[in-house]
């Protein structure tokens, strides 16, 4: 279908969680990269525009609300999947992101199962592809 792999940015302070999400996403055919918390988020977003962002709500120094404000500032159009071990905040972060004009796809509560993450990725990925096709409708498409 699409020539290029969709890009997924993972933002979580726990390496084991990011590793897990990376593994799931790469298995589903995504190109993944992890926010290392060393480089400024803006720089990362500018150098490589993600199609989908996996975002943890609670992180030291910078929580999901801060990150979403940055995303809004730089005009990110990425699909966002919010995740947290705190259900209420998870839902709130998703609503917050939507209200400020970000494209929040869904929220996932931790602990999650592989199936849930795969489904969420599938839905978000489909939406990204549909959007791309809408904007760059090719005259004809070469079947892979």
């Amino acid at each position, binding site marked *: 279908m699409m020539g290029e792999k969709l890009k997924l940015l993972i933002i979580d302070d*726990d390496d*084991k*969680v990011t590793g*897990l999400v990376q*593994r*799931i996403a790469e298995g589903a055919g995504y190109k993944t990269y992890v926010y290392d918390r060393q480089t400024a988020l803006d720089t990362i977003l500018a150098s490589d525009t993600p199609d989908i962002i996996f975002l943890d709500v*609670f992180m030291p120094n910078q929580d999901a*609300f801060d990150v979403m*404000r940055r995303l809004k500032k730089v005009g990110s159009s990425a699909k966002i999947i919010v995740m*947290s*071990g*705190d*259900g*209420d*905040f*998870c*839902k*709130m972060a*998703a*609503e*917050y992101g*939507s*209200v*400020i*004009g970000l*494209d*929040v*796809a869904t929220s996932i*509560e*931790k*602990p*999650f*199962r*592989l*199936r849930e*993450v795969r489904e969420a990725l599938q*839905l978000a990925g489909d*939406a990204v592809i*549909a959007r791309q096709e809408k904007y760059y409708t090719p005259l004809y498409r070469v079947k892979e």
Partner: protein
Amino acid sequence: MPPTSAAKAQKLQNLVDTVLDTIVDGVITINEKGEIQSYNPACRKLFGYTADEVIGKNVHMLMPSPYKENHDSYIKNYRETGDAKIIGIGREVSGQRKDGTVFPMELAVGATHEGGDHAFVGIIRDITERHLAEMEREQLRQSQKMEALGQLTGGIAHDFNNLLAIILGNLDFLSEEIMDEALKESFVMPSIEAAEKGSELTQMLLAFGRKQTLRPEFVDPNDLLMKFIRLISRTLEERIDIRMSLSPDVWPCYVDVRQLENALLNLALNARDAMPKGGRLIFETENVYLDEDYAQENLEVVAGEYTMIAVSDSGFGMAHDVIEKAFDPFFTTKTVGKGTGLGLSMVYGFVKQSQGHIKLYSEPGFGTTVKIYLPRNMDSVGYTAPIRTVDPNNEDMPRAPENTRVLVVEDNASVLKMTSSMLESLGYIVEVASTGEQASDILKKDDGFTLLLTDVMLPGAINGPILAQEAISLYPSIKVLFCSGYAEHAIFQSDLLSEDVHLLSKPFRKTVLAKKLIEVLNNGDA
């Protein structure tokens, strides 16, 4: 010199009289029969009797039971044995006023001998105020304790959920990778089950910490109770007699139905366990007004209208110290392995997170009543039940400008129904959709809408804000009003003031909706 000593005695008597008349504490003297000999003006204020009404009468008239009945024996005992139980020591007892009311008092008693006869002096201080202050301190301590425990358990649950996410995720991978079914069955599956159990536990901790995800909707509590009772009557033994006392015009609640059922189940099972030999289990509903006095006695309670759901049993009840800890996580009176100690904690957290109030009444030997109060969040529109009280805000509700058509988008059926009923009763012409996709289709075909009222989060690919963008690109003059359960949260409040977004906090009363709509229609250019 006798005249001089008589004058001295008179002078002393005058001084004593002045002291007794002036002193703020009550002073009573009695003889050894218990008859009142003197009664100072402060006593009159305390007890409401005049001196004439009490002089010569037995002092037990100023006491409530059981002091009243036992007082004569106290004096007798002292005379015979010299055993001074109270004399010389201050003690907290109760006094009874002329009007029958009882008040806490501090009593100090002194004894004198006059030619072999005993006489007693009682100094009385009203400590009602002090008791109230102590109660308030105790209340504050209790609510601070619950707050701290909630934060602690909520925090632990969050961290554990992160760990469980890693454990469960990797176990899921393992179970996909391992081809040997026997190996999987004996090593991976038990681990997954244990991790899932752990996840259930953290869910309860989150519930207590008021941090679980709630999906509130409008529900008729009577309906819910009747269905619930049908369900549990099959589970509970026959020796438990289930009764209902449902107020016919009870206000609907805006609450997470699954969690409310869960809470009721917890209470019903506790009631069953408190009645091993059988008994009565009573469910009640009622509209109540918790007034300022109640709110003062119960910190955290906001005075106002509530729907009350009560679950009572005729079981063995709880002692005071058990009641105090009943909501604490991991506190249980059940034998080890029988209860998690999280049942009532979950109920507590759920009710608090739903802006409600929960109160436990119990008497050892008589039973327990748990009352859940859920705030009256909405008006009766859309429900056939008549409402006794008249909504005071009804008059100043602005009605719809002529021919104002509104598209309402909301995925929860009960909320959608409620909202459209409110809008119609205000004179709006209403069209509804339950998903973003459905709403988008309607908007494409119909160009007659003045306003879009949509939930922020909607299932599917089109959420509220995306839908709004679509609507505005189709019809630039259309007004948009979002609703969100978090609209009043500090994060939303602080950030969105600068944004050109109209946000309505869910759940809303009709009057709030009416005013907000006019505001958006008049100057909102979103």
